[in-house]
């Protein structure tokens, strides 16, 4: 490429960013209200974290017995969400299903937001985050490949880069009014699908490799991680699609919704089966190795802080599984949204606090010290969630024109579900 062409490229890229910034900050009163709310929450979280940095992690509910809590719980869950979004792309490419292609961009944007949140959750959990450079190869000492955590750092950052590339490329091409060249993104999409599975498996290995923590010491951990990712990811995307249809004027076809619903139907049931088999092992086996499981589901020696949580999660799982079974459920947005919210929250509890905290109770010397997240932890966590939603909102806002684009395949199809009035679109 010669110099002039390069310069032209650079100018148009700058114009693209400018346009994106405009898209991201223009909107209806509702949009502004939503953004202001998220910004306020993010600032509250930022402040709480600053206090935690100054005064130490003593301001959290964690201690030497339960040394990981709400932050790592959220981190684990977010890894699943990041993976789940992208794994939804599998049907689109496997079956050359064009209607699913729109999902690619939604899934990838969700992945980007979720990975950013993952990184935030790890950073706020660190005692000395300013020393992050100790992890860089060459200047620091990166304990690769022995430490599973270094694997996680690699796969998470790689995943972020991959998804940024795919989203950025598709959006930029659309801005230029050119057709995206499949050579430049399809291989990456395939790679990111494979990668999504790897981030999840590696994160599971992070826990299951620790011999001193029997609760995590199960081969079921990695498969369970994948299954729950296939619940939380699609459930979230279904709701996002409804929101896009109502507020963004995006015509959402019935088929992608149906595929998502079918996936959740099956995975919810598989997950329940896994919960039951775990419960059985705890109940029937007994002994010191199952103490954590007992603590989680039934309480141990009068300590039972997590019992209501986990049964709420199980209840949500059962109710949402039943709700998802309703025939023709995609035609009932409210019903389906409630079902998704229940499934999502259930997994958040089960794979967050329900997975991390009981591994430390009883402690490795069998002391029972319970854990209750402090206000600071809730504030910081809410702040990170707000920050993630902020990123997702802005990203979707920028992607709206692509999503609104009439699709040749879609035009042909007669089963488009009530495309929201286009008039709506102007005000968003």
């Amino acid at each position: 490429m010669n110099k002039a062409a390069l310069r032209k490229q650079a100018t148009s890229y700058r114009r693209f960013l400018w346009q994106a910034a405009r898209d991201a900050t223009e909107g209806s009163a509702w949009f502004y209200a939503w953004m202001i709310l998220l910004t306020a929450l993010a600032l509250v979280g930022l402040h709480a974290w600053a206090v935690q940095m100054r005064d130490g992690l003593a301001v959290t509910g964690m201690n030497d017995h339960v040394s990981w809590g709400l932050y790592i719980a959220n981190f684990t869950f977010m890894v699943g969400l990041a993976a789940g979004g992208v794994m939804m792309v599998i049907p689109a490419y496997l079956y050359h299903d064009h209607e699913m292609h729109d999902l690619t961009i939604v899934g990838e944007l969700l992945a980007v937001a979720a990975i950013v949140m993952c990184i935030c959750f790890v950073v706020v959990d660190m005692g000395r985050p300013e020393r992050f450079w100790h992890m860089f190869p060459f200047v620091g000492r990166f304990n690769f490949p022995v430490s599973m955590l270094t694997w996680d750092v690699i796969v998470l950052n790689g995943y972020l880069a991959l998804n940024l590339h795919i989203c950025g490329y598709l959006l930029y091409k659309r801005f230029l009014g050119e057709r995206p060249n499949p050579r430049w993104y399809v291989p990456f999409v395939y790679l990111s699908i494979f990668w999504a599975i790897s981030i999840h498996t590696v994160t599971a290995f992070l826990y299951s490799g620790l011999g001193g923590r029997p609760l995590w010491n199960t081969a079921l951990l990695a498969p369970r991680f994948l299954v729950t990712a296939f619940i939380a990811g699609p459930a979230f995307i279904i709701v996002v699609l409804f929101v896009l249809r109502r507020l963004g004027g995006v015509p959402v076809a019935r088929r992608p919704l149906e595929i998502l619903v079918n996936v959740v139907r099956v995975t919810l049931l598989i997950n329940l089966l896994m919960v039951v088999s775990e419960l059985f092992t705890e109940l029937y086996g007994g002994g010191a190795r199952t103490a954590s499981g007992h603590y989680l589901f039934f309480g141990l020696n009068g300590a039972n802080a997590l019992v209501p949580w986990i049964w709420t999660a199980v209840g949500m799982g059962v109710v949402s599984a039943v709700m998802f079974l309703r025939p023709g459920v995609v035609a009932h947005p409210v019903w389906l949204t409630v079902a998704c919210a229940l499934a999502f929250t259930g997994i958040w509890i089960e794979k967050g606090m329900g997975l991390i905290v009981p591994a430390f109770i009883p402690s490795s010397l069998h002391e029972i010290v319970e854990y209750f997240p402090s206000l600071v932890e809730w504030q910081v966590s809410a702040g990170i969630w707000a920050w993630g939603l902020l990123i997702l909102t802005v990203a979707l806002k920028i992607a709206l024109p692509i999503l609104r684009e009439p699709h040749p395949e879609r035009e042909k199809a007669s089963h488009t579900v009530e495309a929201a009035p286009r008039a709506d679109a102007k005000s968003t």
Partner: protein
Amino acid sequence: MSRRTALKALGATLGAAAFAQAIAPLTEWAADMSVDEYLQKHYKELSPVDLAMVIARLEQRTKEETGVEVHIGDYRPQPGVKFGYALNLSICVGCRRCAQACHVENNHDRPSGNSYIRVLEMQKGSMDLAKGRVNYSGPVPNPEKFYLPVQCQQCDKPPCVSVCPVEATWKETDGIVVVDYNWCIGCRYCEAACPYHARRFNWKKPEIPAAEINPDQGYLSNRIRPQGVMEKCTFCLHRTRQGKLPACLEACPTGARVFGNLLDPESEIRWVLKNKRVFVLKEDVGTQPSFFYFFDE
């Protein structure tokens, strides 16, 4: 200027102000950190000159903050030495003097009463840790019980070391597992990995009254720890690498503790290993401890 632009500008200004407010505590936190400290290299990469400067800085800092003159030594493992520890459970009375001695020797945080040693009161006739408890009180020994002090087992296959993402903790040639407090990023992965609850995190800056600070300190052991990093028992390497005994052993009134060089066939610890039926805790997790327990017949 349109109304919308004006509103946006106002929003941006308010946002920036709120942001500055929100991160204000960070500036207080950063106030007492120097560039040198921030850029300090890993212990193993420090040249002798670098290390001398680091130590001088640390001593100076302690002097400024507490007014106490401390000496921080860089004690290296001796060739031909591998430390081992054995504990006679038949004569341990559960008085917790070892835990107290550790608390004092290692400049632990006073308000939390931290110590690297936990003493479990165990049910006679059972090795089930679930039947033990740490918060016992009243006169000891209770005839129904026996007592099990637990500290870092200086494992030969230490899971805490392999999980550390930045090699801030490692096993030295004399078997002691150490932490570089100036390199640890405080992720607490090692704490989750240790099966013996041997690691402690500095949830806040340790508080020790100036009069109680132990001035004989080691760079890799009992120097006053910074906030937000991991620490653990080092078999008192600032003492034992100079031929002294660990503080917990000296404090034990019954002589239940035996410490020595596993490579020296004449050592008392070797005698114990040869003549007593010793066992290690949680052998099944494969950590291969250098800490042994035994009962008299």
